């Protein structure tokens, strides 16, 4: 079968773009920060979050009480440094929403999203049966998925992620 020029261009673009899109990483974090009432004081948040590994830029929204953090190209945001950075800046973290790319792993009854090295893992929780089936399929196929959801900090073991949206790249 011969490919036409449009198909060729599409495949070429896919090969060029795929490595960046499929790299396992945390791309974006949206952190809800309580106590943000003065822009001058919010400088501490900027200062502390800029020291977190993998952070390229951030957008502090005073009126929404959120900070959106974007990853440096090719790097993952070290999410485990974020709660401490917020605490040290003098505010309270209410919630973290993460957009991460990784592969789904199964361990017994648990499902995990591995977004980096062996320790960079979220335990996926509160899954509907339909979503669980989809994720099991991704795990079996070893497909890369993009998951957006609410992260919960755990004192021990992997942090958890409650997916709000899941997208597989090669279904």
């Amino acid at each position, binding site marked *: 079968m011969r490919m036409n020029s449009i198909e060729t261009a599409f495949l070429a673009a896919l090969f060029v773009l795929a490595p960046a899109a499929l790299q396992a990483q945390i791309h974006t974090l949206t952190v809800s920060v309580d106590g943000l*009432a*003065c822009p001058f004081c919010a400088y501490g948040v900027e200062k502390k979050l800029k020291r977190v590994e993998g952070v390229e830029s951030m957008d502090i929204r005073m009126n929404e009480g959120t900070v959106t953090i974007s990853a440096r190209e090719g790097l993952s945001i070290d999410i485990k440094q974020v709660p401490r950075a917020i605490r040290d800046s*003098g505010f309270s973290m209410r919630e973290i929403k993460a957009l991460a790319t990784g592969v789904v792993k199964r361990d017994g009854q648990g499902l995990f999203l591995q977004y980096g090295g062996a320790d960079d893992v979220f335990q996926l929780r509160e899954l509907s049966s339909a979503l669980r089936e989809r994720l099991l399929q991704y795990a079996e196929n070893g497909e890369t998925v993009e998951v957006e959801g609410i992260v919960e900090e755990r004192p021990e073991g992997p942090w958890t992620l409650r997916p709000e949206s899941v997208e597989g790249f090669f279904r």
Partner: protein
Amino acid sequence: MRLPAFIIPVLAVILCVFGPAYAHEPIFGLGPHTIFKGGLGVEIEIEGERASGAGEVETEYVLQSEIIYGITTDLAATLAVPYVIERAIESGGVERSASGLGDVSLRGKYRFWRRDAPCVQDAAAFVLGVKFPTGDDDRTPRLGSGSTDFLFALAASRESLKWYYFGDIRYRLNTKGGGGLEKGDRFFADLAVGVRPTRTEYLKPDLVLIVELNWETLMEDELNGSDVGDSGGNRLFLSPSFFFTYRNVAVKGGVQVPVYQDLNGEQPEADYRFKLAVEGHF
């Protein structure tokens, strides 16, 4: 980890504050703000005041530099070094003036309570301070009190995107200085309300307008153990002030206008005071 024994007295001294020098706070009163952990604040401020009456006119202009350091998120220490540009007393057509280093103070603040909610922060802090007799008290007029003085204070606030509320009480314990003079202790109580006329975002200019009420009770001075009749009394100031910031730089200032003065004996009464400061956090 055990702290070395000398740390405790050092911390006790560091945990001191004499005046407001933090972020979004009243200009003349005190708030519970601290700086972020490891943060460094630098402030340069100019203060002035004029008092007249009882045949005298007193004026003073002071340039003060302050360094603030965030030891933890809730504990900040400040070193304040005042330089008296001019302190002058005119009496009977004769003016005497002096300038030079004033009394250096080491001060700190511990925020013992904080409650964060979306776009709102409530906080309370206590402050302790020590002022050292570094200013020359042999000159006329004096540049320093010649005494080591202490201050204890409690401050609380509620801050939101639109409104700010502050309240504090302060007590300054003065000790005996040079020439047998012991200035009377002072009690202060401050209330402040601030409003942000236009809501803003981070990395945008931000203006907060504040109105303060500052009460002062001055105990009588003592000279060689005897009360000085022409000293002490009560004062109330109304103080409009502002706070303008952009990212990590703030410009703030205000004027204190006396609305009530009841001073003992014959003393010059305050005409006005002002303060203008530039502060940066790094």
